[in-house]
């Protein structure tokens, strides 16, 4: 079981405000997810190297050639809030970068 503090910390990193009830709910759900993933610990991996990729490709690169992307109107078409050419977002005051 992970602690309520862990849940609150993860919620803060995700910038989510959780009510006390939601923290209880998440505590249970996140614990069950972690337990499920923890089953992997039972697998013997002593003969297997660390694997971050399984597709077998490497060194996939492109040449440094610039091309026009989306126009501004298309890029901001789904933005809920705009201010002129800029996207408008709520200011973030909590701990952050």
């Amino acid at each position: 079981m992970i602690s309520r503090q862990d849940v609150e910390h993860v919620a803060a990193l995700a910038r989510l405000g959780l009510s006390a009830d939601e923290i209880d709910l998440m505590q249970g759900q996140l614990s069950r997810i972690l337990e499920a993933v923890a089953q992997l610990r039972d697998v013997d991996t002593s003969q297997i190297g660390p694997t971050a990729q399984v597709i077998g490709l490497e060194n996939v690169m492109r040449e440094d050639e610039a091309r026009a992307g989306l126009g501004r109107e298309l890029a901001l078409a789904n933005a809920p809030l705009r201010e002129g050419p800029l996207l408008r977002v709520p200011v973030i005051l909590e701990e952050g970068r």
Partner: protein
Amino acid sequence: MAVLTRYETVIGIEVHAQLRTSSKMFCSCPTGAAAGEPDEPNTRVCPVCLGLPGTLPVINRRAVELVILTGLALECHVETDAVRFERKNYFYPDLPKGYQISQYALPLCSGGRLSVPVPSEGTEVLVDITRAHLEEDTARLQHGGRDHSLVDFNRAGVPLMEIVTEPDLRSPAQARAYGEALRDILRHIGASDGDMETGSMRIEGNVSLRPMGAADLGTKVEVKNLNSFRSLERAMEFEVARHAEALGRGEQLTQETRGWDEGKGRTVSQRSKEEANDYRYFPEPDLPPLRPAAEWVARLRAGMPELPVARRTRYRQSLGLSAYDAAVLTADVELAEYFDAVVAEGVAPKPAANWVTGEFSRLLNARAADGLRASGVALRPAGLAELIAEVESGAVSTTTAKTVLARTFHAGESPRAIIEAEELGGLSDTRAIGEAVSEVLANHPAQVAEYRSGKTQIYGFLVGQVMRHTAGRADGRLVDEELRRQLDGEQ
């Protein structure tokens, strides 16, 4: 300053440099506005750099090359086995994907060093380079008001190189010297514009103090928002004094991030930073591993441009320039290249250096705000060489040459053609000068009589009249000869 002798200053530097590529790190969007065009917000964006679902990043080969080149210049180990990109996770509006693709466990370059001359201390410090890695820049946030921010994604995904040193610097002056030396290298190898003012180079200084002789590091403070090398030095000086004072009072310092306030000349505490492990780094699943081929690295090493230290040595030892001229020229690789080209045209190094670092630089700096660099000046090195040759041969005065340079700097006309067309060349025709002198003497009988009666102070006045008569073009030495001959000879 007695308090300072009790403590040793320990500084480490973190630099973020925008790499000089045409396209972004993981997509083909342009990194800058087209030449002469204004940079309109949110125009250089695409589904990849906006973090839209279903898109995949593809590594920009040139960006990798520039980091390898930097690593080689800094004597780093360049990883050819396995380089990994990782996701640095945090939620902030400047990060459309919710993570930044960066490098953590397996950086491209590590374990290098840079020897940095510190003229103000008369020393040279060897700075260990911890690592140089590749990552992507974030979007630019603008203050919108009390409750909102405004986002421009043009910068999101621009290739960025992070270069971190060990805490090897022992004074603010050394920190500044390191920053300048690194900038010179980045410019020489074409890795970055290295411009602090425009933000293509950003510096953070980590500073702490410890009792003299102690091995353990003191509490570290990270200082950001440094817009020039001068602010770096001032901010470090401010922190050293602040730490020394606090330690002297027996206070405990807080490990924190502080921002430099240029106007007030002090640092102020900023928001607390998330712990490193809160970034939850993990290998980027969307990018296959990178194994830079040894031959690729060897090819880059073979094509390495001349580095600033080598260039300065060459300027001083082979060309006989002063340390000052050598430093000024190598601080701007384009200026150095321009100078080299002028010398290649046959001009002696010293006058070439005087003109390039003097009048030429003055005209260049006047337009620096418009982004004018030496390579973009209309007057090419052959033209400046032509002008210097005219001065050196005595055909035109330095003053006239400066006027000609100002005229042709942005136009690129041949200085010699201007001099000939406008008859700016010096009058070295003895007969013409002789006529001018005769005329002046005939027009000023009173002054001539005065001179001949022994009041020779009037001589300067007569020289001035001849120069006026010839519109300043007469060769001074010939005027002097002719005046004396006519005044003293024909009694």
